[in-house]
C-alpha cells in the first residue's frame, strides 16, 4: 500500500467523487446506455462484423469515458484497525461448585476442581481463543469479578451464596473495556444450579432477556448426577400460631441416589422432639411429610426439622432446617373454682365475664355434703363436679387456675381432690399460673400447708385465725414497683389510690416463703417479724403464682363505687394480676426483638432492646447485657454489654453466628446513679426478656445440590450457542461478529482518473468514431 506522508493507509475503496446525487448518476447511465443501444441499431446493417465491432466498441468506450468524466471515480484511502470482539468466559464460583462432580470422577473431585483441571488441560485451545478475541475470564456467584484460570487449582473452595446465571450474563455482557467492543460470544461454565430467576426454568421473560444479550451463549456443564443426597428442601408453615391450637407443617424432601427406604422426619425444639413422621422414599426424587403439633407455650421459639444423615451423603448441611415460630394466645383461658358462692366470688366472676380477652370456665360448689335440698336431684340444676376433667385432662388447657376459698375436702362419693394437687403443681411449674384467694377454706386455715399444692404457693400458713377488725392494706416497697399493684403511672399515685380504697376485713395469717414478693401487707399486724402479708407473688419454675389473703377484695369494687370512687381500682388490680400471671409480654419492663428471625449464615444478627422502669417510663441509661445461648445445648455463645439511650432503647449486633438455633436473653439494670432518692444505691434489676433466632445452616445453594445441565442446554438453545459437557474436552464454540474492522483515523480521497486526461480521450474516441463512420459510408 502506498504511504502518503507519515500516515499509513491500510484499506481502500472505490467511490464516486462526483458532487452529483446518486439518482442523477443513474439517469446518466441510463441515457448513455440508450445512446449505445441506438448506435447498435444503426450499425446492424453493416455486414462486416469487424467494422461493426469497431464502431460499437468506440461508441461504448466513449460512453464510458463520458460516464467516467461525470461520475469522477476515485479511491478512498482509509486507516483501519482490526478490533477484536469480546469473548467472555464465565465460571460459576458458587457454593454448589464445591460439591462432588460425580460421574466418572466420582465424589473425590469437586466441581470447581474439575473446572481447574479442564483449564489446565485445554490451555492451548484457550490461548487460541485469546488470539481471535479479547478474552475476558470472570467468576460469578451473586457478584461478577475477574478470575485467573491458571490459578484456579490453588484457589480456595468456592463459597458464593447463590447462583444467578441470568444476572451474571447481563452484568458481564455490559461491562466496558476501553472501546465499545462487540460481544462475539460467551462460554458459560457452571453446574446449572441456578436459584434465582432461572431456577424455575427459562420462561418467556427470561428468554427475551437472553436473546437481548445479542450473542450466543455456549454452555459447558460441570458435574453429573450420581450424587447421593437427602435434603430438607422446603418448609411450609405459618409465621405464628395460637397456643394450644394444633398447627401443621409441610416438609418437602428432595433426594437422589438413594434407594427406596423409610426415613424419619423429626421436629425438635431446644433438643426436645415435638413431632415426627416416617416417610417412604419411593425413588421419585421428591417426597412430602406433614407434621402436626400443638404449641403449649406462648413466645417465640426456634424449631428445627431434620432428617438423618445417610452414609456417603454428598452434602450434609441440608439435612436440617430451622424456622422461628411466634406462639400467641387468642384469649386468656381462666378456670375459676369456688368453694361456695359469695360476694367475693360474685364480683370476680362479674369482672372476668365481661372482659373480652378472658375465656372463663367456672365451677362453684353450690351444695355441700351436709346440705339438704328438700328435693329430688331431678329438680336441681346441679351437676357433678368434674374434677378429673378440670384438674387433670383439661388442666393444661388453662392459662390460669383460680382457687377461691375452695375447701378441698370433704367431698361426697369419695372424691379426693388432694390426689390432683401433684398435677396442679406440675402444671404451674411447667408454665401455668395459680391464684389462691383467701377465706376460711384457703391457705393454712384450709389445711393446704400439708399438701403438695403448698409447694407452688408463695406463702405458708402462720397458724391461728386472723383478726376480725377491718384494715387498709399497705403497699410495700416491692408493691410500689410491681405491675400487679400498679393502679397509676407512678408509685406514689398508686399508693394514694390504694389508701383511698375502703377498708377490708378477714385475713388468712401467712408467712411469705423465701423468694416470694409481698406487695400488700397489714399495716399493724406482724407475723414472724414482718408485716402480715395480704398479697404475695412468686415465680414457680416456669410458671407463676399469687396469693391474696382476704375474701373481701370485692369491697374494692362495690363499696368503692358506693363511696363515689367507682370500681376502676378493682378492675385494674385483677386485670394486672391476670396479665402478670399469664406473662403478658406487654407487661414486661424489658422487651427484646430482632429485625429478622431467620438470618443467612454470615449475616449479623441485630437485637433491639427496650427497657422500661417500673412506672413504665423509659429507662434512660440502663445497663443492658445480652447473652446468646445455643438453643439446643444451652451453652453460652457470646455475651455483650451496652447502655440504653434516653428513650430506653439500644441496638446490639452479634456478627458471625454459625448456623443453628439460638436463644438470646437481655437483662437490664438501672444503675444506682439514675435512681432518685433510693437508699443504698444498688443497681435495680429492671427485668429480662428472651428472643429466639435461627441462623440458616445452608442457603439456597445447598438445598438442591444436583447439577442442572438441562438448564444450560436450554440457555444455549435460546441464544444460538452450543452445549457440551466439561469432560468432553474443549467445546466447539459458536460466535458472531468474528472481528470487526473499525476506522480509527483519517481518510483520503484519491481520484482515479485525471479529468483532463478523460476529456482528451473522449474527444479522441468520438473523433475516431466519426472518422470510421464516414469511411465506411454511414451518415
Amino acid at each position: 500500500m502506498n504511504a502518503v506522508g507519515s500516515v499509513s493507509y491500510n484499506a481502500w475503496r472505490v467511490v464516486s467523487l462526483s458532487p452529483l446525487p446518486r439518482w442523477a448518476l443513474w439517469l446518466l447511465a441510463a441515457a448513455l446506455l440508450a445512446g449505445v443501444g441506438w448506435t447498435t441499431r444503426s450499425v446492424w446493417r453493416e455486414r462486416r462484423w469487424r467494422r461493426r465491432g469497431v464502431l460499437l466498441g468506440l461508441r461504448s468506450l466513449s460512453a464510458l469515458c463520458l460516464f467516467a468524466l461525470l461520475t469522477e471515480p476515485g479511491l478512498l484511502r482509509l486507516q483501519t484497525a482490526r478490533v477484536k470482539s469480546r469473548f467472555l468466559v464465565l465460571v460459576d464460583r458458587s457454593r454448589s461448585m464445591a460439591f462432588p462432580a460425580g460421574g466418572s470422577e466420582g465424589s473425590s473431585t469437586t466441581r470447581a476442581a474439575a473446572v481447574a483441571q479442564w483449564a489446565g488441560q485445554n490451555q492451548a485451545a484457550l490461548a487460541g481463543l485469546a488470539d481471535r478475541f479479547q478474552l475476558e475470564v470472570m467468576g460469578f456467584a451473586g457478584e461478577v469479578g475477574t478470575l485467573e484460570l491458571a490459578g484456579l487449582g490453588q484457589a480456595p473452595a468456592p463459597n458464593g451464596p447463590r447462583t444467578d446465571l441470568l444476572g451474571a450474563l447481563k452484568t458481564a455482557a455490559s461491562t466496558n473495556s476501553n472501546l465499545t467492543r462487540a460481544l462475539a460470544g460467551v462460554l458459560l461454565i457452571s453446574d446449572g444450579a441456578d436459584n434465582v430467576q432461572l431456577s424455575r426454568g427459562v420462561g418467556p421473560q427470561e428468554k427475551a432477556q437472553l436473546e437481548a444479550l445479542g450473542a450466543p451463549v455456549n454452555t459447558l456443564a460441570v458435574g453429573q448426577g450420581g450424587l447421593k443426597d437427602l435434603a430438607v428442601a422446603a418448609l411450609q408453615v405459618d409465621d405464628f400460631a395460637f397456643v394450644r391450637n394444633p398447627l401443621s407443617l409441610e416438609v418437602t424432601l428432595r433426594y437422589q441416589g438413594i434407594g427406596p427406604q423409610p426415613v424419619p422426619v423429626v421436629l425438635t425444639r431446644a433438643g426436645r422432639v415435638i413431632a415426627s413422621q416416617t416417610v417412604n422414599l419411593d425413588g421419585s426424587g421428591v417426597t412430602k411429610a406433614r407434621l402436626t403439633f400443638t404449641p403449649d407455650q406462648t413466645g417465640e421459639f426456634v424449631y428445627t426439622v431434620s432428617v438423618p444423615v445417610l452414609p456417603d451423603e454428598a452434602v450434609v448441611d441440608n439435612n436440617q432446617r430451622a424456622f422461628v415460630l411466634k406462639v400467641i394466645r387468642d384469649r386468656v383461658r381462666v378456670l375459676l373454682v369456688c368453694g361456695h358462692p359469695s360476694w367475693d366470688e360474685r364480683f370476680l366472676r362479674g369482672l372476668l365475664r365481661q372482659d373480652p380477652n378472658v375465656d372463663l370456665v367456672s365451677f362453684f360448689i353450690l351444695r355441700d355434703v351436709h346440705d339438704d335440698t328438700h328435693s329430688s336431684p331431678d329438680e336441681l340444676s346441679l351437676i357433678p363436679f368434674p374434677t378429673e376433667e378440670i384438674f387433670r385432662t383439661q388442666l393444661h388447657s388453662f392459662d390460669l387456675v383460680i382457687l377461691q376459698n375452695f375447701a378441698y375436702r370433704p367431698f361426697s362419693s369419695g372424691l379426693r381432690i388432694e390426689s390432683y394437687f401433684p398435677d396442679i403443681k406440675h402444671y404451674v411449674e411447667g408454665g401455668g399460673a395459680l391464684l389462691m384467694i383467701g377465706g376460711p377454706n384457703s391457705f393454712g386455715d384450709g389445711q393446704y400447708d400439708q399438701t403438695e399444692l403448698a409447694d407452688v404457693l408463695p406463702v405458708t400458713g402462720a397458724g391461728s385465725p386472723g383478726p376480725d377488725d377491718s384494715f387498709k392494706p399497705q403497699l410495700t416497697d416491692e408493691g410500689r414497683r410491681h405491675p400487679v399493684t400498679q393502679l397509676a403511672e407512678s408509685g406514689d399515685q398508686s399508693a394514694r389510690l390504694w389508701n383511698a380504697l375502703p377498708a377490708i376485713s378477714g385475713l388468712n395469717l401467712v408467712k411469705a416463703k423465701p423468694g416470694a414478693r409481698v406487695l400488700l401487707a397489714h399495716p399493724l399486724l406482724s407475723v414472724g417479724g414482718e408485716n402480715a402479708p395480704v398479697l404475695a407473688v412468686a415465680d414457680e419454675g416456669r410458671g407463676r403464682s399469687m396469693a391474696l389473703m382476704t375474701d373481701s377484695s370485692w369491697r374494692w369494687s362495690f363499696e368503692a363505687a358506693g363511696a363515689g370512687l367507682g370500681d376502676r381500682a378493682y378492675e385494674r388490680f385483677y386485670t394486672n394480676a391476670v396479665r402478670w400471671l399469664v406473662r403478658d409480654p406487654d407487661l414486661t419492663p424489658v422487651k427484646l426483638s430482632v429485625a429478622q428471625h431467620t438470618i443467612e449464615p454470615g449475616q449479623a444478627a441485630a437485637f433491639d432492646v427496650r427497657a422500661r422502669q417500673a412506672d413504665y417510663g423509659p429507662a434512660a441509661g440502663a445497663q443492658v447485657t445480652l447473652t446468646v445461648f445455643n438453643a439446643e445445648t444451652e451453652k453460652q455463645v457470646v455475651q455483650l454489654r451496652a447502655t440504653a439511650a434516653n428513650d430506653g432503647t439500644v441496638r446490639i449486633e452479634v456478627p458471625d453466628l454459625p448456623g443453628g438455633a439460638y436463644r438470646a436473653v437481655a437483662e437490664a439494670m438501672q444503675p444506682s446513679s439514675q435512681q432518685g432518692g433510693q437508699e443504698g444505691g444498688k443497681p435495680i434489676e429492671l427485668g429480662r426478656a428472651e428472643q429466639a433466632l435461627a441462623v440458616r445452616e445452608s442457603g439456597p445453594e445447598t438445598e438442591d445440590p444436583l447439577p442442572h445441565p438441562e438448564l444450560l442446554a436450554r440457555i444455549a438453545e435460546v441464544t444460538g450457542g452450543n452445549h457440551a459437557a466439561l469432560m468432553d474436552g474443549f467445546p466447539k464454540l459458536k460466535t458472531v461478529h468474528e472481528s470487526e474492522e473499525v476506522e480509527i483515523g483519517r481518510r483520503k480521497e484519491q481520484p482515479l482518473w485525471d479529468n483532463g486526461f478523460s476529456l482528451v480521450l473522449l474527444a479522441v474516441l468520438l473523433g475516431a468514431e466519426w472518422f470510421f463512420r464516414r469511411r465506411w459510408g454511414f451518415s
Partner: protein
Amino acid sequence: MRVVSSPVTRRDLLRWGALGLASFWARRARAFGDSSKITFAQLEVEGKFGSRAHALRRLAFEIMERTSLEVTPLPRQLDLSNPDLFDTPFLYLSCDGGFAPFTERDSATLRRFLAYGGFLLADSVDGGEAFDGAIRRELARAVPEAPLQRIPGEHVLYKAFYLIDHQGGRQIVAPYLEGVVLGGRLTAVYSRNDLGGAWSRDDRGDWEFEVVPGGEQQREGAFRLGVNLAMYATCLDYKDDQVHLPFILKRRR
C-alpha cells in the same frame, strides 16, 4: 306447796338453739367476721314496710340448710341514705301498699347501687296497684334506660339452683316475675305474689301466713324461688355456662 318449775317451752329451746347456733357460727367465722357471708338487708321506705320482718331471717335459714351459701342469719335494716348500704349488695323491699317517692339523692344512690352490681328484690305484699305504681315509678327514675320487663321462663334465674317451672308467693297475683336488666344482668326483680309472706316464720316456729291456693307445696315453691334469687345474685349467669347446658336440658325433659 309444790313448786312447779315452768316447762321449757319450744320457744325457749328454739331461742337457746338459735343463740347456740349463732355463737357457733360466730366462733367459726371469727377469722373473717361477716366478710365472706351473704347479708340480706331490708330496705326502709316511707310506707308500711315492716310487715314481713321475719321473712329474710327464715329465708337465710333455708338457704343455709339447702345450699353451700353462707348467709348472715340476721338481716339488717337500712334506708337508701345509710352509709353502710354498699355493705349489703342484696336489698329486699317489701311494702304493703305504696310508698313515698325517693329523694333525688336516694334515687341516685339506688341507681349507683344497681349499676355497680347490687341486687334489689321488690316484693309486693298485697299485689295491688299502689305498690305496683310506686315501684315502677322509682325504678323508672333510677334506671330509665332499662324498663321493667317480664322475665322469660328460660331465664337462668329459673335454673340457678332449682329448676323452677311455676311460682307463687303467699298468693298468686301474677304467675311471672318482672325484672330490670342492665348490661345483660338482672339487677332488680319485682314480684307481686308476696314471697315474704310465704317465707315468714314467727318466733314460735309457726308459719305466719297461709299460702293460697297451693298450700305448703306453694310455700316450698316460694322458698325455692328465694334460693334461686340468692343464687342468681351471687353466681349471676353461671348456670348458663356451656358445660351445664346438657345436664340441665336432660333434666328438664
